[in-house]
């Protein structure tokens, strides 16, 4: 009786001892067939393709990935290319601004929505709908709004505000902010939803205790509730962060990297070298650098989440 129970829970434990191979392949066969796509995805795509890319980033492959091993040549060339360096700098600048603003705005909006307001669901709906749209749509709308002659700038100048300037999209120094406005429009609502879920998860009695203690509302949010939302915050940072590293469609639609190369990003650099630049080795080296960036974000998170002091309650 106990034995059947164990077998049912663990699945893989059997009392008979069939041959090694049949034990691996035949036992629990339907489950293994069902999991086959996952196994293939993991082995072929996530592990296989990644290793392949890392390996070939050390070759001088041009049009086809057949080149010979050249060590770190591709990486040296990568960091000697101004377009790549601009891309990396843009990613760092845009990424840090985007991360901070998304979190701050998302948190503030969540706090505001949390104030037992009227029309709560209307406000929530309005804030989240951009997230349902694609980056292409987002980019194109903002491209039109920021159109220097016919967009916001032109309109306000026509209305008599002669000096009004909002040409960020055409100004190499400001184009990242144009990207930021569109990016925040798309993503802050999502962050707000995450934060709101976190806020609503806080025990109501903690709020009552803070009120009895005479702690002002803002102070309760900052000193008590925010630290309690550590899990949600980390999740948000990881999701926003890995989205930033992937940033591609928005740039293509909004600026296509311009003016000049002033809004290029690594994902676009990689894409162009792989599929139109005819220099696969460069693209793969860039991709490997992107992977490295993600690992740098992910490893501390994975450590906090799964390692260290064991699982959080």
């Amino acid at each position, binding site marked *: 009786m106990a034995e059947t129970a164990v077998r049912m829970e663990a699945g893989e434990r059997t009392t008979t001892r069939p041959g090694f191979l049949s034990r691996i392949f035949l036992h629990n066969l339907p489950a293994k067939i069902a999991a086959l796509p996952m196994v293939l995805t993991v082995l072929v795509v996530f592990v296989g393709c990644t290793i392949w890319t890392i390996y070939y980033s050390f070759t001088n492959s041009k049009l086809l990935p057949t080149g010979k091993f050249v060590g770190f040549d591709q990486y040296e060339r990568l960091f000697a290319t101004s377009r790549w360096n601009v891309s990396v700098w843009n990613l760092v600048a845009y990424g840090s601004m985007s991360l901070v603003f998304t979190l701050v705005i998302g948190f503030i909006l969540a706090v505001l929505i949390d104030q037992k307001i009227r029309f709560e669901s209307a406000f929530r709906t309005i804030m989240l709908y951009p997230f349902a749209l694609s980056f292409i749509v987002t980019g194109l709308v903002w491209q039109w709004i920021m159109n220097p002659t016919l967009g916001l700038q032109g309109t306000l100048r026509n209305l008599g505000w002669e000096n009004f300037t909002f040409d960020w999209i055409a100004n190499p120094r400001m184009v990242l902010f144009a990207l930021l406005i569109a990016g925040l429009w798309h993503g802050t609502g999502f962050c707000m939803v995450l934060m709101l879920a976190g806020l609503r998860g806080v025990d109501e009695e903690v709020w009552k*205790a803070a009120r*009895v*203690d005479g702690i002002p509302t803002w102070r309760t949010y900052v000193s008590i509730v925010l630290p309690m939302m550590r899990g949600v915050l980390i999740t948000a940072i990881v999701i926003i962060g890995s989205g930033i590293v992937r940033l591609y469609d928005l740039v293509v639609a909004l600026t296509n990297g311009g003016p000049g190369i002033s809004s290029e990003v690594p994902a676009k650099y990689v894409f162009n070298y792989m599929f139109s630049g005819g220099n696969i080795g460069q693209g793969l080296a860039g991709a490997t650098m992107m992977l490295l960036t993600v690992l740098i974000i992910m490893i501390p998170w994975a450590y906090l989440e799964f390692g260290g002091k064991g699982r959080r309650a």
Partner: protein
Amino acid sequence: MQHSVSIRDLSLNFGNVKVLEHLNLDIAQGEFIVLLGPSGCGKSTLLNCIAGLLDVSDGQIFISGKNVTWEEPKDRGIGMVFQSYALYPQMTVEKNLSFGLRVAGMPKAEIDQRVQRAAEILQIQPLLQRKPANLSGGQRQRVAIGRALVRDVDVFLFDEPLSNLDAKLRSDLRVEIKRLHQRLKNTMIYVTHDQIEALTLADRIAIMKNGVIQQLADPHTIYNKPTNLYVAGFIGSPSMNFITGTLDGANFTANDGTVIPVGAYQFVSSAPTGSTKAVLGVRPEHIFIGDEAQGMPYKATAEIEIVEPMGSETLAWTKVAGIPVTFRCSSDIPLAAGDTVTVGFDIARGSLFDAGTENRL
């Protein structure tokens, strides 16, 4: 004498759900009041109104003679302890205790002194630098009490503070809360749905049902002279035996025809005239057997159906002339299912209720 807490005509609705209606309650200085009632009867709601965490719909609340109906919780001179402890999880115990005082801008020396005193009273000095996650349930609840203690207030409010603890800890902490009350002598209002807690801790118990206080009295009165059938049935385990019948003149006639003289019964006002449908209630421990039964004014024969030995005492489930009756006796008396024994009781210790209004006669 000045009341510590007075509630005048308090009503509270959530939308159009009326939870409390025209509730009045006066609590003396230093009194330990327990609000007892089934789940959803409005105990927490009442407590939150007193604390100022809920906006009342109508009525007034006075604390230490001051009308605090519109005051913020922090200005009411109350401290509160919650069922889920509600500690600030990212702060050490010390910070948990001192945070409110620091926010209020109290001098550091004074804060330290108060924290030390609370820690000493509750014996949590060794835990001051720990975070709540590293404390046991009992320790957490002590810290929660400490947070109310450092506020140095007149009135303590407890909302089921022990119900997240296991039975052993619960009885330990119960004693500690009682000790705390004896030492501090401030007013305590304590919500629970555990009647043992209520009976052991309270100076007076308020039994609530559907937002209405059914009876407010000391534990002895609540137990022995319940004001209506609801209170009689709610308090006591196993429940009081109820026998329906008719009361006329000096006799109570049970539905099966058994006649019990009620001459020795103390009526609330006077015995009703004429014949009244009534319910007779007798606590299981007020029914005696053996020699003791012989001395009782009323005796009957009981057939024992089930015997439940509970260690120090024994419960017997019996039938007396077809009516189910439970009684409790010393475990020294040998009983077995199927036995027939003589039982007796004194009507003076019973309770009579009007079957219509359900109120005590």
